[in-house]
């Protein structure tokens, strides 16, 4: 008899716990809540769907609510730093981004990696040539990036003066294009 009662008690406890928790229900995906029209405009193969869902960039975008942006109509040009680029960040910076109170800062950094419109690597190349060796690119975060060419590769210089090399480019998506970079870009700050 004891053997039967015990599992029942555990089951009851489990039910009570999930009742208290309030988070027992599955959380809504912000991207999933978009209207049919927005989904249609975004197309089937969105930037959000094409990114490594467990990659640090996508996880960061998700925690800042920008996964909905990347699943939205856009179009945007997204510069995705590899996980190795995130690993290069100072530990305290990376740790602070995980905290809710640092979301402002994280949003600022992420929107610095999103550019308006679809800019292919070739378009940046042409702009560099037309601009006598450099091109200024506006970001959704309000700051600008400077594109130059170094050793046949496109190099982006951020507001803080550090450089990121484009390592993989022109992953075309239904709502824009993705380029991969080897360093996390940081907007200008003191």
């Amino acid at each position, binding site marked *: 008899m004891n053997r039967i009662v015990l599992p029942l008690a555990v089951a009851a406890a489990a039910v009570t716990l999930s009742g208290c928790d309030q988070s027992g229900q599955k959380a809504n995906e*912000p991207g999933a809540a978009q209207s049919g029209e927005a989904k249609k405009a975004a197309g089937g193969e969105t930037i959000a769907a094409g990114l490594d869902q467990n990659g640090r960039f996508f996880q960061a975008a998700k925690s800042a609510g920008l996964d909905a942006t990347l699943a939205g109509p856009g179009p945007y040009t997204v510069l995705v730093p590899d996980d190795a680029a995130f690993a290069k960040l100072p530990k305290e910076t990376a740790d602070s981004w995980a905290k*809710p109170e640092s979301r402002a800062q994280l949003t600022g950094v992420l929107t610095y990696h999103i550019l308006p419109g679809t800019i292919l690597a070739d378009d940046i190349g042409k702009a560099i040539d037309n601009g006598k060796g450099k091109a200024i690119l506006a970001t959704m975060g*309000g700051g600008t990036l400077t594109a130059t060419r170094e050793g046949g590769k496109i190099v982006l210089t951020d507001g803080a003066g550090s450089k990121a090399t484009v390592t993989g480019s022109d992953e075309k998506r239904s709502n824009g294009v993705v380029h991969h970079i080897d360093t996390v870009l940081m907007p200008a700050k003191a």
Partner: protein
Amino acid sequence: MTRFILAAGVAALAISAPVGAKPGEGGGHGGGNKGQSVKADRGGGAMKAQRGGGEFKAAKVNRSGGQHFANFDRGGKGHAQKFERHGNKVAKFDRGNRHDIVRVRDLRDDNRFDSRFGDRFAGRGRIDGCPPGLAKKNNGCMPPGLLKNSLLGRSIPLAYRNSILPLGLRDIFRDNDDFYYRYGDGYLYRVDRRTSLVDSLLPLLGGGYMPGQLFPSAYSNYYVPPQYQAFYPDSSDYYYRYNNGYVYQVDRGTSLIAALIPLLMGGTGVGQMLPLSYSSYNVPYQYRSMYYDTPDYNYRYAPGAIYQVDPRSNLITGVPVLLANDLSVGAPLPLGYDAYNVPLAYRASYYDTPTVMYRYNDGYIYQVDPATRLITAVINALV
């Protein structure tokens, strides 16, 4: 170029200021803080760092202006009074004689006014010992701006006990075995499950200050981020300040906050609160066919983005569209549009030639004259 460098310099300052005020970094603006006992007692709470200045000297109250603080004056005479905060006491001064303290409120002591200095107004028009405007708030006579100080280490007010976060935000503010979250009055409250006391506060609306409250003088050097300065020029009636994702429009005469403007690039985003002044649908026309209000979600435009908002809590649950907002016909093409960026589907029709170029921005394709760099026409690029 000079302008650009100057802007960058200001950007640096503007960015450094709010970061310095981040919770937990401990009294970044502390200076002459006289409230040491409060800080020591309560250690590491979210708001003390921001309020570190500790003094509200410029806190003049205009009888007509304030929704909250003006309530203090109802029983008073027809002249303005001042409040000063010293540590955990808020003293009301008669304006005529700066040293004539009218009454003192001890924030530690159950929010009661201390009558040592002679409370001339006690009992007049009060409900449960509170001025009428504050009594109905059911939080112990506390004006909302001071609520945060009193709530740390106390049990959460009845009114917020059931204010559970919207589903979409529970991943961000995750309840665990030790804590759970509730929100209200511009703050997120982390409640310790063991003690059921508020353990930390996180502002959901800038510094947690709302329209009608006094703008703290400790924030007076928080300038608006440079990319937004052109949109919010100071006038003879108002000036603008920035904190934690929000631009505050402050009335010069009363020092009361007149409006809150959320800025995505300044940090307002998912999990933050959209001010109530954004209660009506305002999405830009080109996006209206895609983002319209439903029973589950509202969509609102604020500088920099279209936000998906939980209608019940007014908390932002997603950011489906980022907007740059800087191109218009007749204006010069701004810095940063050197590269051709027209969406792939439109490239066959709109491509750069020596006499005309095209650039995409916020749902439109703009036609630009390469010689003058002026925008000459606009074409809708959304279905």
